[in-house]
Each structure stands twice: as C-alpha cells, then as structure tokens.
C-alpha cells in the first residue's frame, strides 16, 4: 500500500470529519453515557424535584428475585387439599404474610414439583415476564425466519424461470413497514372475521374452530413470531443468496464426481461454505428479535395477560409513558448488556471458524 498523499489542512479535516462526529457524539455517545449515568438516579422527564443519586436502587428494583417455596393447603390430617384444578395452594397474599422477606415482591413465574410449588417472586415481575417473553420470542422466530430464509435462498438460487420475479415477491414484505404489516396481520388473525380462521373453518368444515390468536396467552407470541418471520425472511434470503453465490461451483462438481447426492452436497459443501453467513444471519435475527417492540405495540399492547410484553416494550412503558427516565434507562442498559453478549458470541464463533 502506498503512503497517503501529503497532509491536509486541519480545517479541511475538521470540515470533513466534524459534522458527522459531532452528530454521532451528541446523539449516540452522549445518550449512551447519559443512560449509564441515569441508571444511578431517580431522573424523570419532567419533575419539580431535583434529580437524586440513588445508587444501585434501580438495579435492585429491576433485578431483585427470590424463589419462594409454597406449601399446599392441608386438611387436619396433613394431606394436601385438592379441587378439580389439582392441588390447592394459598394465595400470594397469604404466602406473603408467612414470608415477611417478600413483602415488596410479586410472583413472576411459578413451577410445581410434586406437592410443592416454587414461585419466582420479583419486585418488578413484569421485567422477568418480559425477559422470558423476549427470549421465547427469539427462540420461536430464529429457526422460523432463518430456516425460511435459507429455504427461499436455495430455491431462488436454482436456474429456473421466474426466480427473479419470486425473489422480488419474497422480499416485498421487508419493505412494508412493521406498523403496516402488524395492522394487516391483525385483520388476518381476527377471531371472527380473520382470513386465517376463515380458512381453518373452510378446511376443517367445523364452524367453531378458530382460536383468538392475539387474545390468548399461548397463541399471541407465536402469532407475532410467524408474522415477524414473514416480514423479515426476505432480507436474510438475500444475504444467504449472496453467500450461496460465493461458493465455488467447482466444489459442487467435485462432490458430484465423487458420487455425492443432493443432500450430501448440501451438508458437505453448502453448509460449510455458508458458515460465516449463517453466523451473521443468526446474530442479526437474534438482535432484531431482542428489540421486539412495534408488533407488540400495534397488535397486543403487551397483552393477553402480559404474554407479549417484551424488554423494550417494558422500557418504553416505564421510561416514556411513565416518564421514569432513570428506571427506563436501567432496563435499556440491561438490554444493551444482552446485545453486547450476543456481539461477543458472534466474535467468538467467527474467530473459531477462521482457526479451523
């Protein structure tokens, strides 16, 4: 590489680099540092009170968690009481009275083992619900969206008529805004008049089928995951397509000469050739999944009993709607920590690939 041409005037350098650096500094670095600092305060958007330093109070309130073991209600003989739903347990109010340490806590999650129930109690149970929902969503959308994207890429990579047209069709949802996609899918998922339930009824011949997709806790998040995969798969399809086209055709020819069938060529040539692309697609999809907000805000408002509240949705609700900047920033910082972990994971995965 040749040396750079002679030095430029400092003013010229400032003129070129200055505007963007100033904007990046003011609107990215400053907010980032401000967020980190705000987590230690009770800062509010508008407040007559001056902002106070509160130490780790926000983190404690956000993260405080206790596992409480709850004994079933027992009769005089000591046997657990039962009703049609199974073993009967005391209410949280009663449990709290028996455990003075959890006065500020509310249940976030519970699991039953034999006759005992373990309650995960938190001071902000909604945060843990949203954390679990966010990971659940990522778990649902990751295989769905990346699998669909890889399948579509393999299809449009074939030398057949119409592949450019279909590539365009598969990509069209990506340029549709998430708000519009969410609205259109809200109609399609409508219980009584939605196209999806109408189709279900037409196929099964049973006029009573058709779940309340967005109103039932067990369906709401999967429904949003399917809709999100539909909206986003086209983007990853193009990324996979570029990866596929960078694999040398000679490798396929060699594999064919050695008698490999289509499946063997896929496993031994295509997949290894796509390694870095797969890591990139998985990580970028994961980061998008963690940021889930718009679909929830438009389609469910976190609803069906908090089954679709996500970390970002929770941060916006506290930071913006309740104007609690300090606490909202704390949620945002925890979210950022998760993002950084994923970024580090990507580095590790790619580095290992280079060494192999």
């Amino acid at each position: 590489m040749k040396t750079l041409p002679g030095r430029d005037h400092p003013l010229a350098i400032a003129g070129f680099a200055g505007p963007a650096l100033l904007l990046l500094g003011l609107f990215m670095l400053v907010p980032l540092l401000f967020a980190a600092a705000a987590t230690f305060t009770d800062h509010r958007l508008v407040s007559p009170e001056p902002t106070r330093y509160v130490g780790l109070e926000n983190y404690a309130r956000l993260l405080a968690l206790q596992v409480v073991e709850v004994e079933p209600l027992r009769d005089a003989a000591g046997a657990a009481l039962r009703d049609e739903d199974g073993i009967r347990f005391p209410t949280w109010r009663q449990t709290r009275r028996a455990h003075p340490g959890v006065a500020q806590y509310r249940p976030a999650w519970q699991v039953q083992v034999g006759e005992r129930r373990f309650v995960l109690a938190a001071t902000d149970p909604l945060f843990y619900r949203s954390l679990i929902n966010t990971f659940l969503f990522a778990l649902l959308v990751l295989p769905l969206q990346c699998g669909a994207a890889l399948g579509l890429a393999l299809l449009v990579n074939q030398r057949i008529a119409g592949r450019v047209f279909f590539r365009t069709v598969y990509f069209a949802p990506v340029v549709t805004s998430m708000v519009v996609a969410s609205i259109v899918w809200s109609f399609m998922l409508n219980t009584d008049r939605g196209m999806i339930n109408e189709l279900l009824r037409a196929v099964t011949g049973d006029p009573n089928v058709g779940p309340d997709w967005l109103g039932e806790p067990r369906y709401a998040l999967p429904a949003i995951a399917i809709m999100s995969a539909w909206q986003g798969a086209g983007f990853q399809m193009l990324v996979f397509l570029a990866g596929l086209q960078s694999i040398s055709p000679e490798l396929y020819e060699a594999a064919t000469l050695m008698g490999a069938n289509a499946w063997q060529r896929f496993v031994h040539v295509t997949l290894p050739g796509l390694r870095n692309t797969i890591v990139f697609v998985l990580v970028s999809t994961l980061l998008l999944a963690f940021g889930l907000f718009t679909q929830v805000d438009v389609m469910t408002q976190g609803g069906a009993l908090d089954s679709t509240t996500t970390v970002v949705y929770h941060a916006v609700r506290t930071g913006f709607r309740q104007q609690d900047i300090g606490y909202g920033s704390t949620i945002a910082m925890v979210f950022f920590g998760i993002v950084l972990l994923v970024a580090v994971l990507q580095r590790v995965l790619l580095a290992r690939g280079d060494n192999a």
Partner: protein
Amino acid sequence: MKPFLRAAFLVAVMGALGIVFAAPLLFMFASSFKHDDAIFANLASWSAFIPDAGWSLANYAAIVERSNLPLFLLNSTLIAACVVVGGVLVNSMLAFALSRMRWRGRRAVLAMVVALMIVPFEVIAIPLLSLVARLPWPGIEQGALTWHIGWFNSLHVQIIPFLANAFCVFLFYQFFRDIPRELDEAARMDGAGPWTLFFRIILPNSRPVIATAAIVLFIAAWNQYLWPIMVVQGEAARPVQPGIQQFFGRSNSWGQIMAYASVVTLPVLAVFLAFQRQFVASVAGSGIKG
C-alpha cells in the same frame, strides 16, 4: 423429461410460497378498493386478493377527508428527504476523512464507528428523549432571535438525530478504500484540494454506495415509529407510521384502514422496485462483510 419435471416441481413450490408471501399484501391492496361488506363476504376464497366488480376509490376519498393523511405524508416525505440528502453527505464526508486524510485519532474514530454499529436505537431512545427535551432551538420572535428549549413536536427532532449513521459511515469507508489511489494522486498532482477531490473524483465514482446508503436511510426514516410516538404529540409534525397506527385504533372500517396502509406502503414499494438491483447488492454486501 426428468429435468423438466424437476423444474416444474420447483416452480410449483416457489409459486406456493409466493402466494404465502404475497397474500397479506394483495389482501391489503384488494381490500382498499372494496366496501367493508365485500371484504367480509369472501375472506376464504381467491377473490379476497383481487378487487371485486364493485371496486371504487371511496376508501381513499374517505381517509383524505377523515384524517390528516396528506399532511402526514408531507411530513414523512420531508423527513426522509432531509435524512437521505444530509445523511449521505455527512456520512460520506466522515468516511472520506477516515480513508483519505491523515490525522491523529483516525484509528480510534474508526474503531468507535464500528463499535457504534451494534448499539440498537432502542437502547438510546429513552436517554435521547431526555436529551432533546433540553436542547435549544432558535426562533425569530418580533424580529429578534430567541431560543426555544425542547425539540418536541417538530420535524427537526425526527431528522437531525438520524443524519449521522455509523453503518452508513462504514459502508462509505469500505467503498472509498477500494477506489484506486492513482485517481486521487493524479488529481492532487493537478493541485486539487480535498474538497475538489471529494466532490469531483470520489463522489462521482461512488454511485453504487450512494444508492445503497440512500436506500438504507430512506427506509429507516420512512418507517420510523418508536421515536415519533415518543417525541411528537400533536398532528402538525406527525409522520405516516404513527398516523396509521392512530387511524387503526380509531376507525373500524377495514377498507379505509387498508387504503391508508396501501398509501403508506406504496412509496417504499416504488423505491424498492425502482432500485431493486442496488437493493439486492446492498443487502448482499452487508452480509458478507459481517
């Protein structure tokens, strides 16, 4: 015969998937021309995806009358145009300084740009809200310059924070790095300064990356949702995405909501179809570099 069967099978699979991917959008466009009764009449048949015999533009007329959609469209167009033009300019200039000028701290700035690429907007949204609430904005009152505190309910609050974009800087940087240096050295020999070099040599040779950056910035600006719902309360500065969300919450006419959704979607779809080649190239580029 066998290759023919294989091709037919693949086309059939592609077509079936194409229907799945196109169905919601076709349903949206088709319903926008229908009366609500007609929409509900044929949800489980092919006719849900094509306008019926009684099609009309009544829904479009109704939304123009019932909402401030033209204003929201104007706002979004202004925001997107400013972000695209300003963003392409400031980001390419920083990339030029990073790839073509020698200065102390250049490597550190480059590392910072790469690091900032992974910061999701959701992380800084809330502190940014607090920041823009305190920023001053100049105004003229009775012939004198006055400073107004707070950027809420304006177009500039939706433009200025999104001009500089770490991902775009990096795109430009990668592209500039690959432009042969003989080009600039020849220009420098002829006595060209950095401004001439940038505007006469580098930018005219960078059309593909300019297109890519413009597309990325345009789509992000047009589809903004989280930020405007936080900083814009009134209708005067509202862009289209919060506009349609609000209309969705207020109206119960599916046809009208679909017409609204179609109007909001068409500009981006048009940009996509017009620049499809650059689009595909830009996505491919973003993936391989990883």
